[in-house]
């Protein structure tokens, strides 16, 4: 069995008295496409922020490619957050140069290729772009990384179905072969076909961690399992 690219051991995170993660443990093997699923507020984003190094005051252990979150793990992870993180004054060209400065595995040629595919002007300032264009810039910056682990937090949130297809196509075409994708979403229907595994978080605990093949062998879909796990109890 290959060494896990991501190991989460008994992860707990609280905001004051509110505990959002209550001891979650799971591993992700390399080369898999994993859906991190759960309703809003279940702790998905807190977990992701802990993995990428934006949250440090958690309990438990996180190992990325065998190492605690730090300089090496940040080089291994390409992270797409929900938020628009680019400064308003930046242009796509400046953003590409910025990423190329810091990440050894950033492929500038690929970034410019995606810029053309997305029909974006390399000299247009972020602040003058539409929300969709800004999201495309962030997506191209992430997918131009030759990373070991891509972590995409709600990449399909707030976009129309056509754009969702386009985003999924871009991710599938451009991620490095043998790399791992951890994709957080609550829009299961759009990603069901590409997932190898699903991890479901409910009220801060692990509710499911299973192969999609196993789900299908039980004559179920991921969406059906999701509805069963998260159904409202009468």
């Amino acid at each position: 069995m290959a060494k896990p690219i991501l190991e989460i051991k008994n992860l707990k995170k609280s905001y004051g008295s509110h505990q959002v993660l209550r001891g979650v443990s799971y591993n992700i093997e390399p080369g898999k496409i994993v859906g991190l699923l759960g309703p809003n507020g279940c702790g998905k984003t807190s977990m992701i922020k802990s993995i990428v190094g934006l949250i440090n005051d958690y309990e438990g252990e996180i190992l990325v490619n065998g190492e605690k979150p730090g300089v090496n793990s940040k080089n291994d992870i390409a992270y797409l957050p929900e938020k628009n993180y680019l400064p308003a004054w930046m242009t796509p060209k400046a953003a590409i140069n910025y990423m190329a400065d810091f990440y050894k595995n950033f492929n500038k040629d690929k970034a410019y290729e995606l810029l053309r595919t997305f029909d974006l002007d390399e000299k247009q300032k972020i602040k003058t772009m539409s929300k969709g264009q800004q999201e495309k810039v962030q997506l191209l910056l992430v997918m131009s990384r030759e990373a070991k682990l891509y972590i995409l937090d709600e990449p399909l949130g707030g976009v129309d179905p056509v754009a969702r297809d386009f985003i999924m196509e871009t991710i599938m075409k451009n991620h490095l072969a043998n790399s791992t994708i951890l994709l957080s979403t609550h829009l299961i229907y759009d990603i069901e076909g590409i997932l190898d595994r699903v991890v479901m978080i409910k009220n801060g605990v692990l509710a499911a961690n299973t192969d999609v093949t196993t789900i299908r062998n039980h004559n179920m879909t991921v969406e059906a399992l999701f509805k069963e796990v998260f159904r409202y109890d009468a």
Partner: protein
Amino acid sequence: MMLKLLKNDFIATGRIMGVIYVIVAGISAGTLISHYMKSGEDMTVVEAMGIALLLVVSLCLFVLTVVFVLSDFQKSLYGEQGYLTFTLPVKSWMILASKVIVATVWFVVALAALLASLWVTVVVLKEEILGENYDLIMGMINQISTVNVASMAVSAVIRIILYFVQFAFFTITVFFTSTVANTRHFQKKNIFWTIVLFVPIAGVVTKFAEFIDSKIVFSLFFIEGKLSLVTDNLEYMRLQANGNSPVDIASIFVYLILGAGVFFATHYIMSKKVNIR
């Protein structure tokens, strides 16, 4: 990586601060050109407006620098841009160090711009404002020139280092306050709390620095045109009472050590206690 952080921080801040200094340089150049090109003795409208503008802009430079440096720190670390900054494959202390160095450089540039604009003002207004004092000032300058040049250079370098260290100390104190204001209890109104907390925090650290500084006497004085090291408190007080201005070497170390302490405290809170929203 540190050089890359510095480069990118200078690019990010330079697009605003750079423009301000280009404006200051432009006004200074325009005023000086107008002064040297005029035919009569009377002050021209361009000179008068130039001087007025220069003084206003120069006096505002420090406030502008503080506001801009703080705003950049808040946005790029604890705002949404923090998602970019804190996921870079660099050590977190480097991110903080780069911000401190860049901000300190801008404060030093602000001081240099203020001094330059005062020089332009003196050049243009020497007859109007200096009048009969002109000879007195020239006499003082001649007196200074009798001082040993090497001693003056040493004194100037030490003073520049001291100003740089003090600006860095001020900067890290501002950043420490902003970082505290971004911990969970204050985060919702972080700007408000940065302003409110700055006065007591800056007050305490500055008073502490001054207290330590006052206990250590290790200063240079110009005595008979040459630099002499004074370590005796009574001698220090006697020379100061005679109007002799000291070059406090001890202050450099005091502010450096305390600044390092505030830096590590800021880094600890930043990396352990702040959750990026």
